[in-house]
């Protein structure tokens, strides 16, 4: 919500947004599971102009040892932006923003993984943002859930994630880049459909409590759609695998 004022009309007279979307409309979302060879599980998400890859290794031995938890697995998420993923080249390696996002994504995913099944181990989730266009933490969390399922990690449910926000005094869904830069508020939400729970929630900008209420519910409603796309990707992945096994048999 850096928000320098601009001539940009974020919502036009027809109530449509810069890219022609209605306020409650998400950008196109495509998910493909099982796209990498070496990782135990993986997923690729194209969401509007975002391209985000997630990979899972584990449960595996936890290094360094002093991080081991004797009662459960550690879900360690590593969010990273490729240096070419943004307009200006980003210096390689994690910055403070990446560290914060890694932390809150780890916490959100921990809630849905049956970590108690794998004491002393680490489940490592790598999220690589290849092309960024607002909403990469939600895209990353969405991809990571699918990658965990693809890796066969036992989970209570998938986490689906999308942001609501406020632009031109209107509550809208899934902010695009200009809306993120020049809008009034952003509310990234991570949601577990089966248990109706919020596992990721941030907000920044300026909102009345009513606006926040509306935005939160709009995001949660959209998370259910994201969830369908996640499940479709996994179904396609399982049937491809099944075919592969039949062919192999």
């Amino acid at each position: 919500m850096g928000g320098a004022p601009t001539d940009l009309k974020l919502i036009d007279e027809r109530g449509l947004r810069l890219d022609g979307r209605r306020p409650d409309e998400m950008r196109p979302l495509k998910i493909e599971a099982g796209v990498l060879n070496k990782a135990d599980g993986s997923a690729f998400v194209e969401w509007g102009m975002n391209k985000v890859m997630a990979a899972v290794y584990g449960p595996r031995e936890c290094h360094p040892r002093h991080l081991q938890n004797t009662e459960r697995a550690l879900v360690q998420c590593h969010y990273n932006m490729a240096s070419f993923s943004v307009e200006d080249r980003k210096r390689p390696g994690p910055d403070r923003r990446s560290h914060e996002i890694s932390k809150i994504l780890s916490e959100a995913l921990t809630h849905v993984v049956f970590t108690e099944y794998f004491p002393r181990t680490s489940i490592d989730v790598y999220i690589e943002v290849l092309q960024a266009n607002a909403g990469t933490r939600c895209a990353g969390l969405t991809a990571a859930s699918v990658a965990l399922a693809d890796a066969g990690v036992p989970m209570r449910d998938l986490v689906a994630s999308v942001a609501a926000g406020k632009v031109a005094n209107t509550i809208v869904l899934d902010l695009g880049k200009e809306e993120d830069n020049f809008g009034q508020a952003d509310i990234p939400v991570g949601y577990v459909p089966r248990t109706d729970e919020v596992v990721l929630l941030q907000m920044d900008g300026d909102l009345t409590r009513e606006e926040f209420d509306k935005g939160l519910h709009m995001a949660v409603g959209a998370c259910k759609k994201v969830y369908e796309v996640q499940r479709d990707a996994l179904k396609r992945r399982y049937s491809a695998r099944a075919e592969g096994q039949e062919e192999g048999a």
Partner: protein
Amino acid sequence: MSKDVVADLKRDYITRLLAKGMRSDGRQFDEMRSLKVETNYIGSAQGSALVHLGDTTVVVGVKLILGAPFPDTPNTGVLTTNAELIPMASETFESGPPDQTSIEVARVVDRGIREGHAVDLEKLCLEPGKQVWIMFVDVHVLDYDGNLFDAASIGANAAFKTAMVPNKAAGLGEDVPLPVKHQPISITVVKIDGKLLVDPTHDEERVADARLTVATIETGNLCAMQKGLDGAFTLDEVLKVVETSSRIGAEIRSKL
């Protein structure tokens, strides 16, 4: 006894009390700990506050240095927030470069200040694109008994209220008060066994399932929020935390 056993016993003790509607230090669920704030504590800073929130002690120092603005915001001063969770303050803090916890504290405090427009950064611009005041907000934790988010947020606001822009030393005329605009106060609530507790101690944080920090300004509007920990909130719980945090934030603000 291993750490895990201790944690289990602590959790048992805390949750058994909670079931009876009690917290281990006798507070109500929605009650803050005692708060003492001393401003202008650090003479070498342009603004500062020593904050005691229960047994948590932080010093917030505000320094203003001349520098260049970011190219994409040529008309505004620069705000930089840093938190040092030094090993003096707790056995659980380690020395070395900032870890994820101190980065999260710094970024959440920063977000509250920035999005709540605590300081009018545009007034910190001296020459567009060339020279602005760079405002460093440094949070130094001396004693850690939980809830750094709120102690630091309160300290930053208190420091802003008494801070001076050091024009004189820079040959720019007389010193003037820092252009304060809003007072975004964050209030943190944790969830333990389904109960929502305001202003957690370190022991409560350790056994908490989930955490939600909500920053509000005088208008009652929300300006920043951060959910943490491995647990979840229902939507109703989120809205209840927002209500509680707004109410208590207003009380704190009126006392500063």
